[in-house]
């Protein structure tokens, strides 16, 4: 575990082609780290949305960073459809692995437990299941009288990446009740985290904070990134920048509009990287 000086020190650890798990916009998305990946020109990522994507994934798609996307949905929420995602899927420019929320959680839990699959209710008869070569519907191997059951494959990302309000100097990261971040980190080989602030208190020392803390055992690298989830929400710290997201939703409908928007959005990231 290392605490790095800047976000770019984390982004350079993610090579082209890496399998990267990303939380949803409402759960501490690493927007700043994603912009650093865009600036460094990362290509062919296999991104797993846990379980849905928003503006951050849409930007990564628009910037050409993503080769394969696995998600239960991608949307800008109240701001409407995710424009670059929509265009990419319609044109077939990315490979889309359509999933459903609980299957993504279960696949990560399988990796967390080191087993090749997880059984899951539902799914049978869905075209999602029918189109997933890595899932199976089998007769219940326990013969519990409940009929066939679906099995979903373990999801083992190379990297889990997310943003958090704080980590301590030992690299223990506050996740609060965002337990999907913990499952992501357990399932992934490495976890990279940006934080608003590195704090002096030991988050594991007190049971009250330990309850919402991911141990540094799972964390490879941390860097401070002020407003690192912006324009998305960081609950308890700042709200979503609805105006920015609405502007994006409108401008990114065309390739040219997207590029103009990103030119502005990335200026700050480029400046920081050049420092």
């Amino acid at each position: 575990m290392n605490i790095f000086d800047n976000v770019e020190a984390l982004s350079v650890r993610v090579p082209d082609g890496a399998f990267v798990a990303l939380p949803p916009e409402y759960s501490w998305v690493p927007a700043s780290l994603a912009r650093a990946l865009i600036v460094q020109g990362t290509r062919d990522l296999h991104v797993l949305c846990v379980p849905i994507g928003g503006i951050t994934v849409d930007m990564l798609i628009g910037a050409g960073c993503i080769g394969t996307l696995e998600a239960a949905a991608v949307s800008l929420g109240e701001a409407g459809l995710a424009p670059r995602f929509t265009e990419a899927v319609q044109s077939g420019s990315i490979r889309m692995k359509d999933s459903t929320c609980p299957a993504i959680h279960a696949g990560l839990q399988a990796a967390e437990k080191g087993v090749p699959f997880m059984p899951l209710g539902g799914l049978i008869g869905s075209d999602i299941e029918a189109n997933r070569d890595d899932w199976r519907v089998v007769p219940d191997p326990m013969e519990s009288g409940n009929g066939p059951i679906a099995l979903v494959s373990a999801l083992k990302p190379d990297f889990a990446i997310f943003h958090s309000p704080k980590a301590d100097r030992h690299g223990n990261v506050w996740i609060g009740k965002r337990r999907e971040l913990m499952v992501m980190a357990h399932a992934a080989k490495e976890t990279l985290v940006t934080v608003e602030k590195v704090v002096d208190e030991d988050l594991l020392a007190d049971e009250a904070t330990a309850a919402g803390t991911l141990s540094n055992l799972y964390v490879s690298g941390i860097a401070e990134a002020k407003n690192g989830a912006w324009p998305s929400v960081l609950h308890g710290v700042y709200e979503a920048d609805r105006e920015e997201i609405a502007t994006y939703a409108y401008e990114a409908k065309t390739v040219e509009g997207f590029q103009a928007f990103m030119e502005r959005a990335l200026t700050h990231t480029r400046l920081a990287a050049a420092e």
Partner: protein
Amino acid sequence: MSCQPEELLICVIADLLESDPTVRHVAVGAASPIPGSAVLLCREETGDRPRASIIHGETNNPFTDGAREIFDCAAQGRIDAFFLGGVQIDGQANINLLGTMGEGGYPAIDRRFPGSFGSAYMYFVVPKVILFRPEHSRRVFVNEVDFISAPGVSARDVHRPGGPKFLVTELCLMSFDAERARFRLESVHPPHTVEEVRDNTGFDFDVADTVLVTPEPEADRLNVLRSRVGVEIGHTYPGFASRVFGIEPAK
């Protein structure tokens, strides 16, 4: 008192929840302001029922085990009602939240929508799923969906404690009979007609012996909706609360 279309739909859904005492806990997913308002209205009117869990909300959110908890909770039988929509819905209650397909079908996408979310699971495990799709047109209500995000009915040997019970649109309320795998028209919202419903539905459906006229909400009910419910739902859906109820988010 004049009533907005969204308000009528909220009241139709609230009635479906209020009239069923087995509905003790309702979960409301992402981007569901009308169902969310209906649950809160029901709770205001019954005084205590149902418990409303609005996921992704900061209030009315009991979940502390991460994003998977709502799904686990539903599979445990602790969620009695849930809402799903669809880009397309067909006469067997198959729902498609993914998009319309191009030549040869999936994965060739003609028009893509966000995706299936948790539908392929919740549709199986929640006893009372209410399908909610305001737009009532032949583009939505098709004879056969292009992609089954979640099937309306399942083979007998498939474990399925849950499934669709009702469909609420801008025109009408339908019930769904899983045995027959068919919808039945129950009531039509004024000023619409049975013929209008038929003209705008791409699948065959049954018609109740007496199709009711959906009652318009009373003034008292609208007052509750526009005050207490509006403020509460505004915490999760500020844009909706502003547009429909004219309630601006607290600073």
